[in-house]
């Protein structure tokens, strides 16, 4: 340990691999210890340290006379101009969109828990992770829609997985024109529970439930036949963020439902601060989420679409979106018998998480 520590210290300092784009890989836990070694505990604590004692300590340490100290303080204080501004005060009206645009970010700033056990300890790492929506290029040409999560270093990858909301989890599979009342029993999230993360050549699989399969096996086997470096496997629930070796600002992969792939970028890693949300229960914290337009019924344009029909003689276009009421009214008679030949699929609106 001692022999390798000098090279370790240098490895754990994140540096740019490509300037301003991403860093070289480093171990998160060691990064944290590196910072904690360099700082005094008082430097990163949450209390307001600026008191009279601090000045006295400063004077003693530097060996300067109290008069010099007073002079320093007098010079370095902030001068606040008392302006009479009420007369010329101009109130800018901000549009409602702008006003609430960053509301999500500021919602949890400075929150303290009621129970001190839930307080985020000093020196804890907070990571900001961007999870991008699956890339549908026709829809998302000019923006990169993403959700930004803040997580603590002591969380494990399963916490991240549970916090990612993707509508493909809510999709219901199957054709239900004959049995429209049975639809909600089959949510994909319950059926297909496997998922994996890919960070730096290691696949982290979710193995919590017995029906989870190791989805990364196919990729690993394929890679062995080609000219790729060997990939490793690990369990998602056993890995905390502290154990990860990642690059900051580099895209990684999260795959669930077999083929729904999200790009995951860790944008920022830092020590916790007084002004952050300090309540453990609120983490993983959603700071930014891209709003997707909800699609309404083709008939009434009022309610959100719940059914998608194809091959439908009643519908103006193929496929066509209906809300629950319009769907029943159009396709079924009063007794609930199916009218005409059509195929109906339950539809999950993409803006379900707004």
């Amino acid at each position, binding site marked *: 340990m001692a022999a390798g520590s000098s090279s370790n210290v240098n490895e754990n*300092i994140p540096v740019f691999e490509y300037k301003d*784009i991403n860093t070289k890989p480093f171990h998160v836990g060691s990064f944290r210890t590196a910072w904690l070694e360099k700082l005094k505990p008082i430097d990163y604590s949450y209390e307001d340290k600026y008191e009279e004692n601090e000045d006295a300590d400063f004077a003693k340490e530097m060996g300067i006379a109290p008069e010099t100290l007073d002079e*320093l*303080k007098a010079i370095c204080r902030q001068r606040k101009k008392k302006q009479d501004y009420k007369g010329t005060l101009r109130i800018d009206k901000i549009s409602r969109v702008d006003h609430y645009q960053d509301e999500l970010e500021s919602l949890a700033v400075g929150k303290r828990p009621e129970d001190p056990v839930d307080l985020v300890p000093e020196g804890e790492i907070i990571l*900001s992770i961007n999870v991008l929506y699956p890339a549908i290029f026709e829809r998302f040409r000019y923006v990169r829609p993403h959700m930004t999560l803040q997580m603590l270093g002591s969380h494990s990858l399963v916490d991240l997985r549970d916090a990612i909301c993707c509508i493909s989890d809510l999709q219901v599979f199957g054709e239900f024109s004959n049995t429209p009342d049975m639809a909600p029993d089959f949510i994909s999230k319950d059926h297909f529970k496997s998922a994996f993360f890919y960070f730096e050549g290691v696949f982290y699989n979710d193995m919590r439930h017995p029906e989870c399969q190791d989805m990364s096996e196919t990729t690993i086997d394929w890679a062995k036949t080609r000219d790729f470096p060997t990939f490793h496997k690990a369990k998602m629930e056993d890995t905390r963020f502290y154990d990860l070796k990642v690059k900051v600002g580099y895209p990684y992969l999260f795959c669930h439902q077999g083929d729904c792939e999200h790009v995951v970028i860790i944008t*920022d890693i830092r020590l916790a601060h007084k002004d952050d949300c300090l309540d453990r229960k609120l983490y993983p914290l959603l700071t930014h989420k891209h709003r997707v337009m909800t699609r309404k019924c083709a008939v009434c344009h009022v309610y959100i679409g719940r059914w998608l029909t194809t091959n439908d003689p009643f519908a103006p276009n193929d496929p066509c979106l209906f809300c629950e009421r319009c769907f029943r009214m159009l396709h079924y008679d009063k007794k609930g018998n199916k009218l005409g030949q059509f195929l109906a699929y339950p539809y999950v609106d993409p803006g379900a998480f707004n």
Partner: protein
Amino acid sequence: MPNGKAKDRFLKPLVADYEELLGRFQQTESVRFEEFTAIWRNMGFSSVFYGSLAGNEMREFCHLTLTMAFNYFLPPYSFQIRVGGLYLLYGLYHTQLASPKEKIRIALKDWEQIQKFYQDSVNSQHYDAVYIIRKLIAENAVLYTAMPQMLTFRVKKKPQHHKVCEEFRDRPERVKDLISTDMLQEVANIQGHHERLKASVLERSSIAVTQQDLPARLHSCVLEFLHWQDRHENHGDADHLVYAEEKAQQVESSNRAQLLASIKTKSYGCLAEASRSRRHRQVEMDTSISGTGYIKQAPKYHKSRAPSLKARTNKNLCGEGDEQKIQYWLLSAAEEDKTALKRQKRKHSFRW
């Protein structure tokens, strides 16, 4: 509706403002906070945050100001500019209008540099810089991060690198880095070893493959270069050179001492006058600067540092259009030429 993000719009003007402020600070040839605040108030720099920004842009803008200002706090800038960058950060942090305050991000890789800077300030007794660093840390103004910016893998957008302002750059110490005392020591050791081996192998050690006095000659070369550099800058401070020659053995430490001592005299040469309430306790200049044995001189007033060779070449070859004061004769100016109608701003006010 605003066109373009805040970062793109405000980057160039901000950097121009910073360089103006730091340029003025550099001309005062001092590292005192009073000088800096005088310039700040003169320029009315707090008004950089005024102006109606769209709702959330204020936060983004404050973040941008702090990030840009932090660049001036790190090498390769000279010590004076780094102190100026520190004061700039302090001022911006306190005058910003975002609430809760946007923090200063310090990356782990820069921490060493900051510690070195702190030590330098402590050693040269620049207590105001030291006090301000401690105050910033104590006020929780600092976020300890992995990287100075949040990285979102925007490869398509060309990342804008911070262009180092040439006038603020520190004196290049490449020669000193190449030929340090350690290296000279090693060369001398190897030389001695070689001589001994030669003596033990041959009877007549008249064959000399290497130069006999290599370390001494390297040393004198370096000294000569340093003298030339000093002379070029200080326009011939003879005493300065004599002193440097006396301390011939420690090239590195003497250079450092000279730099520190020069900063010290520059800073303590122009003393802050005590305020009226403290007139009875005028600050006395401490002439007994021990440890360096530096011969005190009245600080010379230079107009500005001579531009480096790189800057001069740049100017000559990649010539930026020179801004001549074109006097317009209104009758002959083109009608579309609006500049003719504007009054030229007087650069120097009339001195009665």
